[in-house]
Structure formats: structure tokens, C-alpha cells
């Protein structure tokens, strides 16, 4: 009898015990910094020792700050490219790879996924050399295949920095998201295709009627994580552009701006204001994405 009540008791309290490490660590290293950084965003600081209260002054300054505008513009362009170039490419590759007659699927999957194993910092070091004018392999390949001049300055010409960044991120992430789509495609019930075929649907109609609804949950997941990921872009351009924002700030992203104002110039207050503006932007966009894709309909968490 006592044993039974012990069991009931520990069944009641076990979940609290199990989440407690998370709660404790999260309070100290999550909740506290969140409130602290909200507070910091109301000050102009010079390191931790000098604080001057400015109220919403940082946010007001932000609105008229041309560098902040540049950072927003670059980040949004990058995010749009991620969503509209990278995801369709990933899906396309996944569809090709899920053809039943295909030989060498394992090899292709591994090949496309391989770049993901290389961390952003290392990718940036590598591509920094690949994009070099005259001697870099990118220019040499373009010269050999398309007869382009071999002294294109990918990382020195302000209008080419973004394409170079997008290319690098495609290299890194197309294969990664492909894996998700591949799994989703495998999960689509094959009988549905047969049924659609019987109804006389062509491939495109099958895609719209069967594939799209079948992979929707995964697609939404990939869409939202890819968007959040691209809004947090930092290490790749920072190292690729030799620890700078690049010529004409063409590689300045929001997180890089946050880092530079906070940890290079030493104004943690202004940096926090940049961070919170970014966080709110990402939140709004994610919610919007989930709404238009109808991700909430099936949610019963």
C-alpha cells in the first residue's frame, strides 16, 4: 500500500524533477539575459562600467541609422534568396533523388549533404580562397567554361558580394534541406499517386494534388527554420569578408551589425536595441509564415 502511494507521488512529481535542470539553467542563462538585454537596450554603454540612460533613444536612433538600414536590406535579400532559391532547389533535388529507378541514390545523397558537415567558419575560410580573383577556382572555372574575365572581384566588388554569399550558402544548405524533403517524399502514401493516376492526373497535377499536401508539415518546418537561420547569418560573411562588413557594407547583416556595435565599438546598449528589433522582426515573420501556410490548423501541442 505504501509502495503504491510512493509510486503515485513520484508519478506526480517526476515531471517537475525532470524539467527542473532545464528550468534552472534556462532561468539563469536564458530568462535573466533576456531581461538584462531589454534593460541594456535603454542605455548607451561603454563596456559594463559606463552606462547612460537614454530611454527609447537607441530605438529612435536606429530608425534613422543608415547602417542599420543597410543591414536590414542585406539580411532581407539574403533571406529571400534562401527561401526562393535554396528551398526550391532542395525540393527539386529531393524529387529527382526519390525516383524509384534511380541508381546511385546513396552516393548523390551523401555528395549533396557533405558540405553541411563543414562548419560555417570553415566554409568561409575555404570560399575566401576559392573566390580570389585571377587565381581562385571560381574565376578560373568561369573563365574556362564561359570565357569570362578571370579577375572578377567577387569579394571586393560591392555588387558581387551578395551573389557570392548566396552561392556559398546554397552550397552549404541545399543538400541539408534536401534530406528533409527526401524523408517527407518517402512518407507520402504511394497509393494516393496510383489513385490520382487512375483519375487521369498528369505529373504536375499529381504533384499539386498529392505531393504538396503530403509534404506540407515538413515544408513549413524547413521554411520557418531556413528563414530564422538566414536572419541570424553572421559567421559566414564575417569570416568570408576577412572580419569585416565588406566593401560598401555590402555584406553587413543584422547580427554582424549587432556584433560590431557591441563587441568592437563597445556599445552593448545599442547592440541590444539592434538585437531586439531583429528578434521582433523574426517573430513576426515566423508567425506570418505559419499562418499563411496553415501550420496552426493541425497543431494541438
Amino acid at each position: 500500500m505504501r509502495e503504491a502511494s510512493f509510486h503515485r507521488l513520484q508519478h506526480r512529481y517526476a515531471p517537475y524533477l525532470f524539467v527542473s535542470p532545464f528550468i534552472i539553467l534556462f532561468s539563469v542563462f536564458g530568462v535573466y539575459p533576456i531581461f538584462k538585454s531589454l534593460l541594456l537596450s535603454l542605455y548607451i554603454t561603454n563596456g559594463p562600467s559606463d552606462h547612460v540612460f537614454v530611454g527609447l533613444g537607441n530605438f529612435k536612433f536606429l530608425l534613422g541609422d543608415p547602417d542599420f538600414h543597410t543591414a536590414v536590406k542585406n539580411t532581407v535579400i539574403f533571406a529571400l534568396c534562401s527561401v526562393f532559391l535554396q528551398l526550391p532547389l532542395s525540393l527539386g533535388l529531393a524529387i529527382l533523388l526519390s525516383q524509384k529507378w534511380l541508381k546511385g541514390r546513396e552516393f548523390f545523397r551523401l555528395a549533396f549533404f557533405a558540405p553541411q558537415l563543414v562548419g560555417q567558419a570553415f566554409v568561409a575560410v575555404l570560399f575566401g580562397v576559392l573566390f580570389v580573383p585571377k587565381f581562385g577556382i571560381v574565376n578560373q572555372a568561369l573563365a574556362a567554361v564561359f570565357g569570362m574575365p578571370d579577375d572578377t572581384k567577387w569579394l571586393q566588388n560591392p555588387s558581387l558580394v551578395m551573389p557570392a554569399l548566396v552561392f556559398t550558402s546554397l552550397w552549404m544548405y541545399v543538400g541539408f534541406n534536401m534530406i528533409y524533403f527526401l524523408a517527407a517524399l518517402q512518407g507520402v502514401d504511394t497509393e494516393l499517386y496510383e489513385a490520382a493516376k487512375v483519375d487521369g492526373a498528369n505529373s504536375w497535377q499529381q504533384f499539386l494534388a498529392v505531393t504538396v499536401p503530403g509534404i506540407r508539415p515538413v515544408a513549413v518546418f524547413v521554411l520557418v527554420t531556413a528563414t530564422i537561420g538566414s536572419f541570424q547569418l553572421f559567421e559566414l560573411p564575417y569570416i568570408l569578408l576577412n572580419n569585416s562588413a565588406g566593401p560598401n557594407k555590402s555584406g553587413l547583416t543584422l547580427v554582424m551589425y549587432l556584433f560590431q556595435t557591441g563587441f568592437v565599438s563597445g556599445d552593448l546598449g545599442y547592440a541590444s536595441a539592434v538585437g531586439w528589433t531583429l528578434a521582433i522582426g523574426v517573430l513576426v515573420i515566423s508567425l506570418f509564415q505559419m499562418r499563411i501556410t496553415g501550420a496552426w490548423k493541425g497543431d494541438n501541442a
Partner: protein
Amino acid sequence: MPTFPYGKAAFSFVILALVSGLFVTLHRVEPRKTTLTMWTFADTHYESYRKALPAFEAAHPGVTVKVEHVNIQAVTSRLQAAFHANLNVPDVVEVEIGSAGSFFRGPLEHVGFLDLTDRIKKSGLWERMVQSRFATYTMQGHIFGLPHDVHPVVLACRRDLLEKAGIDINSIETWDDFIKAARKVTIPGKQYMLELSDSGTDNLEVMLFQRGGGYFDPEGRCIFDNEIGLQTMLFYVPLVAGKDKIGSTLGSNQILTQAVEQGYMLCLFAPDWRTKSMERDIPRMSGNMALMPLPAVSKGGIRTSTWGGTMLGIAKKTTHPDLAWELAQYLYLNTADLANRFKDTNIIPPLKEAWNEPAFKEPRPYWSNQPLGAVYAKLAPQVPPQYSSPYVVTAKAKFGEALVSCVQYYNANGANGFEDYARKRIKQSADEVRRLVARNPYHKPQGSEN
């Protein structure tokens, strides 16, 4: 093997953690306790200080000194952090000129470096060194750093190729002469006379300084939109834009030197430190290279400028300020050592009396037997000052943005209306800098109306 219930992955990481844990415990090196710690960001400095330190330790029984090589970006961010937080700071540290200003952002009393003004003035160093070099490390009249170098700029040229094209570098006196010669040899996309960036300020600012301009005046006011700034831009843009351009760039140092070897680039701006990377990266060019003083803006004008620099600072928190000062003097003022270091780095010291050492007068076969040290030493006293501000990095970036816009304008419209456009565009950039400066609550530039 009995199966591990949580799978291969968990098993692998348990093993990895154990093995690496064992390794790091066994190889745990307690950091050697030394009397003084020094940070430097340059490989070459690190090597030469390591050679010089044993003598210093021998002369100071019981004193140990450790020199550490720290990445240049890491020096700035770590030092910022260490000054503010309760961290061990290095006693002595070398800081790059571009980031020096960022340490002067807060109130004067919160600068993390020791004020060296009295020590420099009392010891007579003020007179013995190239005075313009103190400018960057001075805040409101207080000197916080000892200059490591002078970094006069000349041009390093492919003498052989220029001679083949009938150009004698000794006959070039002014930029006009230089441009005339450049037009003869420049073939866009194939061969350029001079390294000139159309998107960054590294080369543009060499010209700005040569003309006596700068980003800030001694009082910390942003001035790059003054007449000198405008004239520099008007002169520079046609060299990198439009159909008559004579210059281009390829980015990093090592790539540029490769381009020199291939004959794609005939001349590079060469502050003294850069000649070493050429000797190291393209040894095959020995004897083909020569140095030429910077062409003057007009006949009789100064024939040099400056690019880069390093200061040595002493942390306020150090427990041995006097010993640290002695170390600084030992490293920066000992003429015999300076001569040796010059051989290693090609960098001439700001200490004028050191230039009399024979090493500075030796002819260098790599540079067509020119006496490299003497070439630079002759120009060193004329090196223009660069005044410091916490906003130098910002100003550089903004001036660069103006450059990019001007280049775009010039490419599209040529000289048509260019002057008006450039004037407005540079002012816009400078206004953006002033807007930031005005926000700093800790100190206002003297004489500003805020």
C-alpha cells in the same frame, strides 16, 4: 561486444569524452606564472621579441616575461573585454592603429591604458622619436601608447617590366608624370600600373594623408569632407573608374604579390612592412623590384604618406608599471636590437638615432641593390600624422561608401557634374559620422556646437 542500449552514437561520444578528457587532463599545462605578459598580433613581431627577451630577463634577475601571439581581431575584442571585466589583462600589449581609437570611447579616466605622457616627456623620448607618430595614440593631450613604427609609404615597382616599356622610375617626380607613364603600360584586364582599390579606402587614404588631409583633426572633429578630402577624391576616382583607369586591385596581400610576379600589377603601395611580404611571397622577383618615393602632388611636394601602424600600451591594471615601462623601452629603444629587427621585418623604428646603424644602409639585392632602410629613413621625418578618434573605423567605412558611390557615378556619367556630386556625397558620409560622434555621451569634441 555487449550492446550499449543507447545506440552507436551515444556510445561513440562517451568514448570520445573519456579519451579526450584523459588527454586534456594529462596534458594540462598550468600557465607559467610570469612577472610580465605581453600580447602581440603580428607573427614577425612575436618571433623577434622572443629572440630579444632572454637578454631582458638576464638583466633583471627574478623577472620572467612571456610574449603571446594573439590574432589581431581577438586582441581588440579581448582587450576591450579584459579592461572592463575582472580579467587578467596583459601587462604590455601591442595594438593596431585602426583599433587604437576604439579604446578611447569612454571617459578619459576609464581608458584601460596607462597614461605615458610624463614618462615620454621626461625621458626625452618626445624629441628622439618621429613626433607625428604619437598623434594616433593621444587622447585629449594624453599619450597612451609608444609608437612601434613610422610606416612611410613608397611604391614598390617591377623595375624590369617598366624599363622594358621605356619608363625610368627615377624620372618620375609627380603624380602627373606617373599617370602619363601609366597610360602607356595599362591594358585593362591584363596589366595595371598601380594597385588602386575602387571599393576600399586603403589606397585612397594614402593619397589623403599625403595631401595633408585626414579623417579627424587633433580635436576629434570629423574633417574628411573638407577641400583636401574632396580634391583627393576628384583626383583618385578617375584613376580607378572610367575608360582611362590605371589601377585595380585583387584583394589580399598574397594575391596582390602573386599578381606582381605575373606582371598583372606593376606597382604596389609599399609601406615598409609590406616589402617583407613581397620578399617572402615572391622570392623569384629578386633583382626585378625597386622602390620609388611616392610621386609628389606637385613639384617639390612631400613624397611619402603612411599606411598602418602599431602602438605599445601598458595596462593600467598591471602590478609592475615601472618594469613594464622598462620592457617597452628595452624593446623599442635599443638601437642594436632595432637594427636586428629591421633585418627581420624591414620595419624602420620611429627612434631617429637608430637609423644610423649600418643595417639601415645596406644595399638590398632584392630591391635592385637599393638601400631599403635609407630610402624609408630619408622620408620618415615627413610622414604625416593620423589623428585618433574612437570613430576612425566608422569614418573609414563611410569614406569608403562615398568612394563607391563616386566610382559608380563616374562610371556612368564621366566627369560631367562629378565635382558637385562628389562634394555632396562626401559631406553626406561625414555628416553620418558626425551624427554618431554627437551621440557619444562621454566626451564631445572640443569646439563642437553641441
